[in-house]
């Protein structure tokens, strides 16, 4: 990476290990971080949703040549909203639909908000991957 992400976007905590590097970013700086990564020519790997017992976490994994950069965003249980990144990375649509379906995170501005991989008549309020 030509310029480290830290001086572009306020990163609360970052750690590096081997080929991986993780950056914890606030929700509203997400967009700036993503457009920076887009300029660097990173390719979206996948988006992981996680229920970390007291709050929700969304991890965006990007592949940049051999390196793997992960941007982590913390969401509280009561407002699980995250902006869509399909404007930068079109491929994120499927991964974000997975977030909607399996973790109940609603993605703002997603073009197609049908949950992925859930049977149509799935009526249960709490999404499957949440730790009850």
């Amino acid at each position, binding site marked *: 990476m030509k310029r480290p992400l830290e001086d572009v976007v306020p990163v609360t905590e970052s750690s590096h290990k081997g080929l991986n590097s993780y950056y914890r970013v606030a929700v509203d700086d997400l967009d700036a971080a993503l457009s920076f990564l887009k300029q660097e020519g990173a390719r*979206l*790997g996948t988006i992981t949703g996680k229920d970390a017992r007291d709050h929700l976490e969304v991890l965006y994994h990007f592949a940049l040549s051999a390196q793997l950069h992960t941007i982590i965003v913390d969401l509280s249980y009561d407002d699980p909203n995250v902006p869509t990144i399909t404007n930068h990375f079109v491929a994120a649509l499927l991964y974000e639909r997975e977030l909607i379906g399996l973790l109940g995170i609603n993605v703002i501005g997603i073009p197609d908000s049908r949950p992925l991989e859930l049977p149509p008549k799935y009526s*249960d309020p709490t999404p499957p991957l949440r730790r009850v």
Partner: protein
Amino acid sequence: MAEVNDRGFAKLKVPIGPSHPALEEPARFLFDVEGEKVVDVDYEIGYNHRSIERLCQERPFSKIVYLVERICGICSHAHPLNHVERVEDIADIEVPERAKYIRTIYAELERIHSHMLWVGIAGEEIGYHTLFMYTWREREKVMDLFEMLSGNRVMHGCNKIGGVKWNISDEQTRSALGVLGYLDTTADKITKAVLKDSSIAERGKGVGCLSKEDAIRLGAVGPNARASGVPEDTRVMCKYAAYGDFDLEPQIAKDGDVVAQALVRLAELKQSIQLTKELFVNLPEGPLQVEYDEIPPGRSVGRVEAPRGELIHYTETNGTRFFERIKIRSPTLANIPSYVPKFIGCQVADIPIIAASIDPCFSCTDRVTVIKDGRRKIVSAQELKTGRI
């Protein structure tokens, strides 16, 4: 029966799937067809759903390798290899050299039998049954080789945190080299059959084209992307397992149609056979496993080149007996968006071959969580096992 579009063709909605002779695994495509031309496509996945990621959080450590191995029948070595490497990355375990080589041998043999399987299925999709019969007959040699090495054709169970379980004796190496020599000539025959055959060229040329920009924009991976000219191969980039000792270069083609897909896969088949021979020849001596005590809390993301493309595993441990989170992004999930530009504008006759062109493996794709028919209940591993959802 159906309303007619401006040029007088009947507008139809053709459903393909979830169970359909063209699809080897359940997925559902809904095509808006005018006459024979496809105008729009919508896809649904999730029919082969076994809540594997939820299970990964509810099963103790030692059982996860076997669970991850059963995600997909064809790439049943890529998933555990990636999982084991992630845990070793977290716990900083240094795997002995011989174990790395044996893991790479299994990975490459799996690529050989997966690509031969695809060539057969592609032949079957366009109705060329002889190619199917012939390639799958030769593929049996690789499956027998697997059975000789690891005791089982598909679920080899050779991966273990810290190394490999099954050793490879000299006598096994000799017979393996014999089989690989035979496979070399078969690969040439199949390549010649696919290239020279007019009916394959006629059904494959210019069908389901994926441009390089679309491939990059939609995030296509593996042979599907390389057929459009995207030179990305995780084995070359990440040098995991024993790939560091060999200089590979990605096999790419230009025009991204079905014939290009076949070209890339057949070239990779040849490359894998050659690489496996080298692996068998300079297999280093040494122990198979290394002991490890405690897995510290931590996280790791990593990529492995499964036969269908780049497979990403995200593993997080919290120091207890269970994993905090395991996320598996299979190559097919990344390749599904590239269906849209391929399908729009094709003919009904081309649907099966295009559906097969990305070599979909939906059992990999549907490993995330859902509970049966809408009712969500806390399902313990025990209940899951007897219930067999």
